[in-house]
């Protein structure tokens, strides 16, 4: 299990002696400077704060959150498109030198698939060029490029591959385009695939095809996959581990089913109760009590405290660390602080 994404206060004997993560971010923080004076907002957007996340070979980790929660920023930091303001990045256990130009080796290990396959593929080039270019840049030569491209197309289940290789993006459907985008990422034999909302632009009936393809790549080829999404039901379907983000922080993480079946953080509960759920028998909606905060001036302490129905004095004063609430299941919420005599016992005051 990916127990080691859970930080300090977790009892260490809970963590399995799992294999080393392929890529690991420790305390990743990203601040964006806002300079637009004419909007009167001059300051810093705290897009991601102290995010620790580890991706393991043969596992899918989902990052779930609303817009502005920082989930895409996390994937972009791991892809090193956005350099972290602070924090550490380990690739195969080796620290990555941040702040320098990204090496070709890093790019060959870590690849990113973007949300919109209508925008991410250059419309003037054929599939052969789109898939051949990363191969050429990374040193493949000569005749085997054609064969490698056909093999790539088969890996993403675009068959017969010979028919697809000379098509332009506009001749393909959305699902087929997203498969090309995934094939392009796979061209350089990465160990880590970062998929940022890979299905949200696609038609409903073909989304599962892409999710199943990602599951296949995990199972057959042992890729470490990050699945960034706003759809917690699809995260439950695909992922082994789910991390829930709110206002730039991971507030709960654990095994996928554990998060959706036994959520502990009040925000995770809110998110789950808001998700469309045709299987639930007439669930009641308690209300959302406001909206996510400004990331220029985030609330002190726990960033969810202004909206939290269980907020206590400590919540606005100190940021909660991760408390263990189950095997490999951690929750950043003071309600689960078993050392505090005044706090409510988990399961007691918490419905």
């Amino acid at each position, binding site marked *: 299990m990916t127990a080691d994404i859970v930080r300090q206060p977790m009892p260490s004997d809970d963590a399995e002696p799992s294999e080393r993560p392929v890529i690991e971010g420790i305390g990743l923080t990203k601040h964006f400077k806002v300079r637009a004076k004419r909007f009167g907002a001059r300051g810093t957007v705290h897009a991601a704060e102290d995010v620790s996340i580890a991706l393991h070979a043969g596992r899918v980790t989902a990052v779930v959150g609303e817009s502005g929660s920082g989930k895409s920023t996390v994937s972009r930091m791991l892809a090193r498109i956005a350099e972290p303001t602070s924090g550490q990045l380990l690739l195969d256990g080796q620290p990555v030198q941040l702040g320098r130009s990204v090496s070709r080796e890093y790019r060959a290990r870590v690849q990113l698939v973007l949300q919109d396959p209508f925008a991410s593929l250059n419309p003037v080039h054929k599939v052969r060029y789109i898939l051949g270019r990363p191969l050429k840049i990374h040193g493949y030569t000569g005749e085997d490029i054609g064969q490698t491209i056909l093999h790539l197309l088969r890996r993403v289940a675009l068959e017969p591959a010979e028919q697809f290789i000379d098509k332009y993006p506009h001749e393909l*459907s959305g699902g*087929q385009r997203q498969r090309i985008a995934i094939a392009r990422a796979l061209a350089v034999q990465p160990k880590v695939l970062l998929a940022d909302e890979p299905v949200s632009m696609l038609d409903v009936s073909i989304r599962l095809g892409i999710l199943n393809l990602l599951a296949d790549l995990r199972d057959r080829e042992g890729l470490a996959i990050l699945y960034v999404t706003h759809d917690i039901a699809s995260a439950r379907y695909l992922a082994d581990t789910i991390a829930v983000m709110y206002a730039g922080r991971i507030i709960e993480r654990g095994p996928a089913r554990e998060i959706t079946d036994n959520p502990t953080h009040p925000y995770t509960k809110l998110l789950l109760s808001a998700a*469309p759920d*045709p*299987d639930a028998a007439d669930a009641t909606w308690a209300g959302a009590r406001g909206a996510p905060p400004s990331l220029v001036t985030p609330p002190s302490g726990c960033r969810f405290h202004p909206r939290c129905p269980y907020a206590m004095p400590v919540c606005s004063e100190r940021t909660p660390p991760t408390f263990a609430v189950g095997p490999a299941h951690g929750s950043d919420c003071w309600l689960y602080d078993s050392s505090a005599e005044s706090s409510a016992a988990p399961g007691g005051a918490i419905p």
Partner: protein
Amino acid sequence: MTADGGRDLNRPVLQIQNLSVDYGMGDEPVHAVDGVDLTIHRGEVLGLAGESGSGKSTLAYAVTRLLRDPGVIVDGDAFFYHYPKDGGQPIKVDLLSSDKDVVRSVRWSEIAVVFQSALHALNPVLRVGTLLDDVLKAHNSQMTRRQRRARSIELLEMVGISGDRLGSYPHELSGGMRQRVMIAIAIALHPQLLIMDEPTTALDVVIQREILEELMQLRERLGFSVLFITHDLSLLIEIADTIAVMYAGKLVERAPARALFHAPRHPYTYGLVNSFPSLHGEQRQMTGIKGSPPDLRHVPSGCPFHPRCAHAMPECVTTTPPLIQVEDETGRRDVSCWLHDGRHSVPVELGISPSEAALSPGRVTAPALEDGEL
């Protein structure tokens, strides 16, 4: 049919008959809507589900006469029934052949539309108060300025926005608030029908839930009917009374919401229902639907779904199935599939009894019903 929970399913509000809409004329028109029959009753929430290109939005634009070139209504009728307050006989308005002025008087005062992108639907240089005031002034010339202002504040508060937001411009509001303003403008004149075209698709899930809850409360209070258009079938199950599913311009199934979800009859509906992973129960492999939605310039012959259908038969390729009425204990439903014409044996997963399915909280699956662990 019977009246059910304040909904009067005997009295139609909007009746669409054999509606066909093409884009472009000449040799190769695209048949965006192809012979659709659909009736919305008083107080009913009708969900219209379909993927992009299925014609669901075109249908809404056509019946409100908001369709722009190159869209052409080539066939069919759409009637709106206006029920007078004193309970007299309904007045029937022909939406498609009436004069533009007649349609304009009905549109918004009787049929209001909420579009997906409120940022684009609201004029960016006018304040919220002006936008509301315009609607009231255009349709209620006897209202005074003071009355209009009071009504504007009342409307904003009905959708959960404080009245002092009258002076705000659309860009000063969040996405959820903009969509709420759209709803306030839509209900300003007490319409009998609200057409909502993907009203919450661009919003976050928590805000979506808030707006839907408010909308359903307003519906209970004001009693309007809703035509709710979305690609998100899982959302419709919770809010709609009846769901109609469109595919490639055609209506493929129409049934009571729960029956449609738990016991779909059309293979496409079945595939669509099984494209939404559940939040409960075992994590099981789901397949979605093989292939892609068709290119509307080259719609497959016969049943447009046959190239993607696991049960396709020779006649599916040659002949388009009509809407066949199927009776079960949930009442009548319509399904456009040859499997249900009485001459074929219905595959197990398309013949589940809705009452059986309702006992199991899980979803209908091909081999057996999964038990939901709630």
